[in-house]
């Protein structure tokens, strides 16, 4: 059952076939990392993740809706509401937002929408960065058809690696958001350190990501659902079981809430008390850090 | 000035810590306890206060029944009961000074402990001694567990010298605040006295009680349940 853009997909090599050939040349333990439940060379992970996202880019939203039964929209709007970011009335300096790994732009446009509706903020700028040009291309298509494309240059798109972000200068952003992207970084701590670098003092780091469920009964049900149903849905809807298998496995490997909070503190952020909010029993979690 | 106000305002530590403070002087100060560490100390004082209350009333019950019937046991029981009263008073004072919430089921513990004391004493003097064995065994293990945690989980509190600078590797003697040291000393002293009661009870024919296993195991279970409840409620 193929959906549109199949031409785009078939020209990109499937990530796991690349994996089978690279196993022969595996080097020492330190230069390997995890790719879902596989162990791969660090240099290869970026390419493999790129492959996954290129192949899911066009159906990304449909797959998100199918996988989380639409709840991901609730999570994202809760994230935007809790962040409550925007230039307040009576203030004279607009904010600079940076949305990382937000290729398709839903969080980015949601943030701008929220700022406009709640605070009448029409001046804050938004930079959407993504390592994957295909995902970014989807975002640009959406932007062209949206109201934000009003010639004011508020929104721009950059292809950037979240771990280095060479094009973004130090101390230049007020709000750094990353939704469901940080688990794909090869070196999460480097990503956090870069976030610290690009934020201005007083800037907020906000991360929405899948996390560990604390209740063991619900966790059992959730694992059963993820590992059996999701790749199957990937197969049926997008004819791409392996990418969705990777997505599910990468969720499992992501650090727990407290551990990730520790990593955020290690990058230099001040984490307010508790530091994370569990959504739906911990299936997703919002982590906050402040650069002081 | 009212006596209560004097107590509130005085910078001298209450008598329990005065001796320790004299040794350390005012040259060091300590960082804060984490929320979890405070929660544990709160729990320790509450459950130990309830435990000593229970022990106090158990001996009260046993004494009431046995003292007249068995005059030779009177001094033994009296001595053990007096020590328990002292333990209970110490924890009462500690509960007030540290502003810890006492267990809300205190009336229940009073009635229950008195009931256990009286009923085992009515069964027989050996049964009363067996009850003592059971209770003291559980309390001994319980105090040991508390000591283990107090020794292991309170290692990371920073120590500051008189200028406010953190001392990198403090001596064994000043590493723990007088508050924690005196609590640990108190608990180990009380544990030793409880184990002494255990030995006394065995000397006085505890093992001759007829349903020995049943009695001791049942009472141990009840004690463990009471400890679990008093920690939380």
């Amino acid at each position, binding site marked *: 059952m193929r959906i549109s853009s199949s031409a785009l997909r078939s020209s990109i090599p499937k990530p796991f076939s690349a994996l089978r050939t690279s196993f022969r040349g595996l080097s020492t333990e330190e230069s390997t990392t995890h790719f879902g439940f596989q162990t791969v060379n660090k240099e290869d992970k970026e390419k493999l993740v790129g492959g996954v996202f290129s192949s899911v880019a066009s159906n990304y939203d449909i797959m998100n809706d199918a996988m989380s039964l639409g709840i991901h929209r609730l999570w994202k709007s809760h994230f935007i509401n809790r*962040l409550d970011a925007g230039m307040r009335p009576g203030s004279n300096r607009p904010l600079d937002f940076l949305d990382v790994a937000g290729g398709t732009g839903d969080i980015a446009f949601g943030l701008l929408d929220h700022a406009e509706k709640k605070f009448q903020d029409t001046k804050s700028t938004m930079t959407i960065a993504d390592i994957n040009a295909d995902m970014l291309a989807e975002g640009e298509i959406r932007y062209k058809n949206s109201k934000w494309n009003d010639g004011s240059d508020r929104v721009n798109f950059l292809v950037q690696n979240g771990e280095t972000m060479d094009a973004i200068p130090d101390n230049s952003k007020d709000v750094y958001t990353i939704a469901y992207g940080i688990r794909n970084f090869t070196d999460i701590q480097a990503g956090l350190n870069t976030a610290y670098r690009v934020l201005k003092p007083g800037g907020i780091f906000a991360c929405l990501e899948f996390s560990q469920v604390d209740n063991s009964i619900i966790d059992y049900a959730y694992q059963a659902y993820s590992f059996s149903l999701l790749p199957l849905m990937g197969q049926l809807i997008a004819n791409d079981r392996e990418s969705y298998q990777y997505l599910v496995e990468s969720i499992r490997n992501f650090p727990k809430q407290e551990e990730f909070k520790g990593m955020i503190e290690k990058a230099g952020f001040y984490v*307010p008390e508790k530091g994370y909010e569990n959504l739906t029993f911990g299936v997703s979690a919002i982590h906050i850090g402040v650069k002081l | 000035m009212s006596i209560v106000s004097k107590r509130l305002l005085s910078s001298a530590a209450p008598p329990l810590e005065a001796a320790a403070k004299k040794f350390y002087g005012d040259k060091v100060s300590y960082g804060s306890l984490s929320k979890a560490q*405070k929660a544990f100390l709160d729990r320790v004082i509450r459950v130990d*206060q309830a435990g000593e209350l229970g022990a106090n009333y158990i001996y009260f019950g046993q004494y009431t029944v046995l003292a007249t019937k068995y005059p030779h046991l009177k001094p033994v029981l009296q001595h053990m009961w007096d020590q328990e009263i002292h333990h209970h008073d110490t924890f009462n004072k500690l509960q007030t000074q540290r502003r810890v919430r006492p267990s809300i089921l205190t009336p229940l513990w009073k009635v229950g402990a008195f009931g256990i004391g009286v009923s085992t004493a009515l069964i027989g003097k050996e049964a009363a001694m067996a009850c003592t064995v059971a209770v003291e065994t559980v309390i001994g293990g319980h105090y040991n567990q508390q000591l283990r945690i107090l020794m292991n989980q309170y290692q990371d509190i920073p120590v500051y010298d008189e200028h406010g600078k953190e001392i990198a590797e403090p001596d064994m003697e000043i590493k723990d605040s007088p*508050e924690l040291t005196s609590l640990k000393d108190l608990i180990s002293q009380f544990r030793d006295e409880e184990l002494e009661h255990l030995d006394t009870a065995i000397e006085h024919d505890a093992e001759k009680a007829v349903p020995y296993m049943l009695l001791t195991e049942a009472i141990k279970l009840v004690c463990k349940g009471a400890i679990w409840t008093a920690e939380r409620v």
Partner: protein
Amino acid sequence: MFKQVRAYIPKARGVRFYHSIDHPSSNLIVNPDSIESTILTNSLKHIPKYGFNSYCVTKSIQDLKYPDSIHSVLTSNADGKSLEFQLMLHWLRIQRSKLHEHIMDPASEFHSIENEYERVSYLIKQRLQYNEPIIKKLSYGLSQLSTPYNLSQSLEELHNLSDDIVYYAGDESNDFAWYTKRAGVSSIYVASELYMLSDTSENFKNTKEFVDNRVRGFDGLGGVYNNIEQWGAFNAIGLVNLVKSQWMRG
């Protein structure tokens, strides 16, 4: 061979507990170093003008010359507290620490009062006095406290206040009376505060009388629990003696 010691430290819920003597920084009501409390403390001075509104927080951030993004530290609060509720809670905590400072001042007239219940009365009146500058805005703040999702946290703060008041008054109870005294003070305080909202007398004279009356009534209750215990023990002893004497006869 050696049993693993499980990390048995209990999960710390929000309840006030354990006042440390050698670790005084553990007893702080408001942590003065954190950025959240800096912002909130500064917003308190805008309350007389704007009430318990999130605009106070915005103004405070602008006063302190922090960027607007810092709002997110407060709005993204992990417990889900709204800005207005956080403002109200912070105000309550600051008043409680003000009360503590008042007590710690040796020159205060509080220290010449001997009777425990009169001390309670004095403390409640003193705390209510801190409401006077914002009395017109207070009803909105109090309504924040009683919404169902905020209720548990506001009750915790109320219990902390009555624990403080009863402790400063000199309570030394070790049993059920500990609970009855604090419950009593909590209810008197809530009733007095609500009374104060609609009190138009000179210098809130009527509220002060109200507090005194309530505490006097409560004084009588104080001995009730101990009396019940004594009565129960007396009757139990009497019953045992009765049974013994009947048994002897039969």
